[in-house]
């Protein structure tokens, strides 16, 4: 274990090195060298992560301290990493999927010039670094460093094609939305610090039970609000669909597989606090469920292949939050993992489609691609099956765990969650059928251009497809195999498993079958509806959904525009007239006063004498009365 501590810092450090080399020498290095540096650093981290993972398997947990980041007064923040089951699992996900996406990107971004190629990979490496920092931090400040670091990388990568104004606007939106969450996160940190006197996880969690319940509720709510920004939940989810402006592998890496899990990781990490705050847990669960359904309804009517996937991400994250809110942390983490697999797969497959279509993203202009893009098609199907929860694909196990805990908790939650799951199947298969079935609806030029990507791309897809298929087997429920739930067992040292009112095995099986049957029915419905593409003008509720419930417009009109109008008012009216006016007013008053007083100097000697006499008299009188 000791040697783990000695080299664990290498895990985030290696991608940082990659970032520095690629960032500083992007003009000198050749493209292939850039790709090799970027990929090997992440691969090396991945290998180290596996090693760390094997070390902590027995339930070990270690904190490695390096130096003091801040020490002022009672505030002591060491730069320290925490290695335990939870963080090592995330390390695997981040570096593993990160590596695959790096490899995929080497071909996807091939047409970029050398300088931009280097820029792209340095950003990717920086992202991996920040994310690793986030999950490895042994206190909230280190976590916050990574927390904002990923927001930065997201900003840089969404605005990667900075010539396009819309893209850089989307980048700004992502960063600013995340900052709103950061504000809550920071306030939570200050609150924690003022109540517990520390920000280190071990101290905070051990002191958790001593705090007032109101304090805990506020802290956890603030933390949760922070998480809603990063993990795209109501009310701060709107940046994520816009974030699709970035290159597709970025969407896969950041906006599907890793960064959006930051909020989930943070809440799971703070499980010790959340389990003390039932109010917050309810808020988390309800927000998660509402987001899941809201995003699913929007996804039904989107026509941009990446937007559909983006909303599906939001929706799946909603499920994970539902699980967290219900206290089913393991189920949540399980879904994080499987979701990372299949969402990365879906995005990369979508990237392959976009690549083949020469940048086209509108599914109305696709169709019939399965002939030309065989591997992409098959892997995409695997992804769809996984996300829809068809047994025995990975999504089935993880989603089932969430649904089951919802059922155990509250039947209404269960029904709504099931409804959301059906929506998921419907929109995913709508996407699949519209893209790959039917006849091609693009231009002739695009049709001739259609081709499968190079081996690096297809290989990445295949690896992810295998993971999406088999990833669920680490968490087989007790019903099927005793001791099959390896994941819970692995995580149990960090995240205790609570099961209240567990249902019997027969009920559990009935529920599973019910879910599976319903999902298949929905898929068939989608098949009937979208097998052949029909152009329809959306009306009524369809239009409402297509326009994403007008949430963006609502935010613009309620928050953004009034604030900027207020800013204009302050700038043009208040600052000029009132504040400046007051200052100038004082000056003018002095000016005016002296001009008036000047008139006393008339040059008439008698006037002066009179004034003198009168003042003397005045002084006498005043003195006379003062004496009294």
């Amino acid at each position, binding site marked *: 274990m000791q040697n783990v501590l000695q080299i664990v810092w290498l895990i985030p450090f290696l991608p940082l090195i990659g970032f520095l080399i690629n960032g500083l020498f992007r003009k000198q290095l050749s493209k292939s060298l850039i790709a090799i540096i970027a990929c090997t650093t992440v691969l090396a981290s991945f290998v180290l992560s596996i090693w760390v993972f094997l070390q902590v398997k027995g339930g070990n947990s270690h904190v490695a301290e390096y130096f003091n980041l801040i020490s002022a007064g009672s505030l002591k923040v060491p730069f320290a990493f925490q290695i335990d089951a939870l963080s090592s699992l995330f390390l695997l996900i981040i570096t593993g999927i990160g590596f695959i996406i790096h490899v995929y990107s080497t071909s996807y971004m091939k047409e970029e010039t050398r300088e931009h190629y280097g820029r792209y990979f340095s950003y990717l490496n920086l992202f991996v670094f920040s994310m690793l920092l986030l999950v490895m931090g042994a206190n909230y400040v280190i976590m916050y460093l990574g927390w904002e670091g990923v927001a930065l990388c997201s900003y840089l990568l969404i605005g990667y094609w900075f010539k396009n104004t819309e893209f850089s606007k989307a980048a700004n939106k992502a960063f600013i939305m995340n900052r709103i969450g950061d504000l809550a996160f920071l306030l939570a940190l200050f609150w924690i610090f003022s109540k517990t006197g520390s920000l280190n996880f071990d101290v905070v969690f051990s002191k958790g039970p001593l705090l007032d319940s109101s304090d805990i509720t506020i802290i956890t709510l603030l933390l949760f609000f922070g998480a809603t920004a990063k993990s795209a939940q109501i009310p701060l989810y709107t940046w994520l669909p816009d974030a699709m402006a970035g290159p597709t592998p970025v969407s896969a890496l950041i906006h599907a597989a890793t960064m959006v899990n930051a909020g989930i990781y943070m809440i799971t990490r703070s499980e010790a606090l959340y389990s003390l705050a039932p109010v917050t847990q309810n808020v988390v669960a309800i927000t998660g469920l509402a987001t899941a359904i809201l995003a699913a309804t929007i996804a039904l009517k989107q026509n941009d292949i990446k937007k559909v996937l983006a909303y599906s991400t939001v929706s799946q994250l909603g499920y994970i939050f539902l699980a967290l809110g219900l206290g089913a942390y393991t189920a949540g983490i399980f879904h994080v993992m499987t979701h990372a697999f299949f969402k990365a797969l879906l995005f990369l497959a979508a990237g392959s489609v976009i690549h083949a279509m020469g940048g086209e993203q509108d599914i109305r202009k696709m169709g019939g691609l399965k002939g030309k893009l065989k591997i992409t098609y098959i892997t995409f199907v695997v992804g769809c099956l996984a996300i829809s929860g068809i047994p025995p694909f990975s999504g089935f196990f993880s989603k089932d765990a969430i649904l089951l805990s919802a059922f155990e908790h509250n039947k209404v939650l269960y029904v709504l969650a099931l409804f959301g799951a059906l929506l998921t199947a419907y929109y995913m298969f709508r996407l699949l059928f519209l893209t790959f079935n039917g006849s091609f609806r693009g231009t002739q030029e695009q049709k001739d251009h259609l081709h499968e990507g190079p081996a690096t791309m297809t290989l990445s897809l295949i690896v992810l497809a295998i993971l999406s298929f088999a990833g669920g087997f680490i968490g087989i429920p007790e019903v099927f195999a005793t001791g099959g739930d390896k994941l819970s067992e692995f995580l149990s040292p960090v995240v205790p498993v609570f099961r209240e009112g567990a249902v019997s095995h027969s009920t559990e099986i009935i529920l599973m079958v019910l879910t599976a049957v319903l999902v298949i029915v929905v898929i068939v419905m989608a098949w009937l509806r979208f097998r052949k593409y029909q152009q329809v003008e959306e009306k009524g509720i369809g239009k409402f959904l297509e326009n994403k419930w007008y949430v963006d417009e609502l935010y613009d009109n309620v928050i953004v525009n009034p604030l900027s109008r207020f800013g204009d008012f302050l700038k043009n009216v208040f600052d000029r007239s009132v504040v400046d006016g007051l200052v100038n007013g004082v000056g003018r008053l002095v000016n005016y006063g002296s001009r008036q007083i000047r008139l006393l100097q008339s*040059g008439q000697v*008698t006037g002066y*004498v009179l004034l003198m*006499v009168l003042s003397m008299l005045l002084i006498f009188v005043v003195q006379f009365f003062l004496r009294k």
Partner: protein
Amino acid sequence: MPVNYYIFLSLALFAIGIVGVLVRRNAIVFFMCIEIMLNAVNLLLVAFSKMHHANQAAGLANVGIDGQLFVFFIMVVAAAEVSVGLAIIVMLFRNVHSVNVNFLNRLKH
């Protein structure tokens, strides 16, 4: 004789001087009024000096002469002032043919 008589007399003289300065416009009269005021002060100084001296134990020879000495100073200064002032007035009269002080506010402009 009580000092009050002297005080009231000099007060009266002083008041006459002030009123003269305030109401008359003739520079010569001005001067005369100023002289009256100065003499009012002189009178007071002498009177106080005398009273002061009378009540003083005669330990020191020159105690109480201060006031009377001052009067001489004032007289000298007043004489100098009058001589300069009258010269100015004469020059003014030659230039503007008037000794009315209301015409003499040219410095203002």
